[in-house]
């Protein structure tokens, strides 16, 4: 098991380096002169040149890339924002809790409500309870969440005045963003949970359990749920990655200064250190979540545990 985790961590580093090279290269070749973007159009060439030197972009691509990778992976430093001159790493550390304040509760809601709805729907397969749940889920899977967010702001913030429309002044202001980010995940997870429960319902070992004289409620909890759990976990983990990486939209709508909004501003200003820092950070977060997810499989399924033990 330990060997397996070590192997996975090594792979993760390779993936992170690849992601870093990719995003750096993309940002490098994006058209537009960073110096001109910062200072304006009618600036004498000499000043522009000085600015370029200051930003460290007057050296060849390969030198810049090497410097970036060295700083990012060995000194955990993504440099300073070109626009604001603030350390990207420090800014990320300040902003991360705000993003997680939305992401983690949204994920918890997703697991609790989504899974329960899916199981409920599967148990009532083909009946009206199932149809209603699935229609609602379909609506929230399809509705873009920035639109849902705007509608919610209209209703709950402007009309009913229950919660603030934007900002992070108090805890209530996180309420709407959390709900708006959770809704699509809940809907996706409900559909996933339903279909994986239905797959398990038809399994022979469920018939075996019924033949033993076991109660339906216990069959659901003891036999069906553990067997249906794996696709559900996959969905939830994927959902969490999406919540964090997809935070730019919700953070922009609700004006929350989180990691997502930071990355978006970086993209708009061609602020390469900011974009690279955010992307590498997202990649790290996603890899960690996936690693934890894979390890959790081993605790659910003895067959997978046996595979991991072999170091595969």
């Amino acid at each position: 098991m330990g060997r397996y985790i070590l192997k996975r961590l090594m792979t993760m580093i390779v993936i992170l380096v690849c992601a870093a090279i990719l995003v750096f290269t993309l940002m490098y070749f994006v058209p537009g002169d960073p110096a001109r973007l910062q200072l304006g159009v009618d600036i004498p060439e000499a000043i522009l040149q000085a600015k370029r030197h200051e930003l460290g972009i007057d050296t060849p691509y390969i030198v810049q890339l090497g410097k970036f990778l060295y700083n990012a992976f060995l000194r955990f430093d993504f440099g300073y924002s070109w626009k604001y001159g603030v350390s990207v790493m420090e800014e990320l550390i300040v902003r991360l809790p705000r993003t997680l304040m939305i992401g983690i509760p949204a994920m918890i809601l997703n697991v609790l409500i989504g899974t329960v709805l899916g199981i409920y729907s599967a148990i009532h397969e083909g009946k009206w309870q199932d149809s209603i749940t699935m229609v609602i889920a379909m609506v929230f899977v399809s509705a873009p969440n920035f639109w849902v967010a705007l509608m919610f702001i209209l209703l709950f913030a402007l009309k009913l005045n229950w919660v603030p429309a934007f900002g992070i002044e108090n805890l209530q202001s996180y309420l709407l963003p959390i709900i708006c980010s959770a809704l699509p995940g809940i809907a996706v997870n409900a559909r996933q949970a339903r279909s994986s429960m239905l797959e398990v319902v038809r399994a022979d070992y469920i018939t075996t359990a019924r033949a033993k004289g076991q109660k339906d409620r216990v069959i659901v909890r003891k036999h069906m749920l553990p067997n249906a759990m794996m696709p559900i976990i996959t969905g939830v983990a994927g959902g969490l990655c999406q919540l964090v990486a997809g935070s730019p939209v919700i953070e922009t709508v609700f004006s929350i200064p989180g990691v997502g909004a930071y990355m978006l501003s970086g993209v708009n200003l061609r602020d390469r250190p900011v974009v690279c820092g955010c992307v590498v950070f997202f990649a790290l977060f996603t890899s960690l979540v996936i690693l934890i997810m894979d390890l959790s499989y081993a605790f659910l399924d003895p067959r997978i545990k046996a595979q991991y033990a072999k170091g595969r």
Partner: protein
Amino acid sequence: MSEKFLEVKDLRVVYTQNRKTVQAVNGISIRLERGRTLGLVGETGAGKTTIAKAIMRILPDIAAKITGGEIWLDGVDILKLPPDEMMNVRGEKVAMIFQDPMTALNPLMTVGDQILEVIRLHDDCDKKAGMDRAGDMLELVGIPRERYAEYPHQFSGGMKQRVVIAMALACDPELLLADEPTTALDVTIQAQVLDLIRELKEKYNTSMILITHDLGVVAQTCDDVAVIYAGKIVEFGKKEDIFDHPAHPYTIGLFGSLPGMAVGEKRLHSISGLPPDPTALPEGCAFWPRCPHAVEACKGKIPTRKIRGVHFCQCVKEKEELQEVYSHGRS
């Protein structure tokens, strides 16, 4: 001495699929005495498993429906029992051995715990005593009790089937429904498993319904045989009756399709045609479209002919004719 223990009267089951009605069981009647073994023989799709699941009342709720008949077990019509009382019957009075040991066990539970589950459902015992008994059951079917905490994937197919058998026998059921218990196993293991079932059955004087399409298994294990075709019993009798004097053309066809031990036969005989579409069964005898002796009367009402003792056959032909058919069919 012998008492009527299980009596199924005119059982009818239909499946509904895409608004089509599949007539799976069409008026089956079975009687079984304590300690005896009845073989249900027939092709795939003849409705054998459906009969067993109907007796357990574990047919899938949505698709299947019992449309008629009674199932009397030890003086109680179990089709009329409320669901919670039926739970006490399942696993304790009636137990089932399933067809495919590869999928019949929950992959995420240790085999011991799966046996423990049925023990604790029906016997009032604490966990420790239950685990002891589950260990005993494992040893009974020839698995060392040290393997209690292993998972199904660590067992071979034959071993898994032993676990399934241990689970079925854990609460000393009075009726055992064995649904093709050896089909998924290779021939050497088949013999072992059959011996094991027979041994345990004799030890506890259990009645058994053995579902199979393997006539060799029937010969080894059963007392009585019911031949099923398209959800109906076409012929019933003692094992000797059926094996030595098959009467119904379908039964004869079945035996005819066994490889003979004698002179070098190059090809196996088969019954021409396919089993009828269960959504549209032919009028009268369901076998007439494939029957080499079919006459116009086959499309009408089919009489039940008594041949000898308990040996019955559903065919329009007279008893003498049927015997003749027999000698004819073999030549």
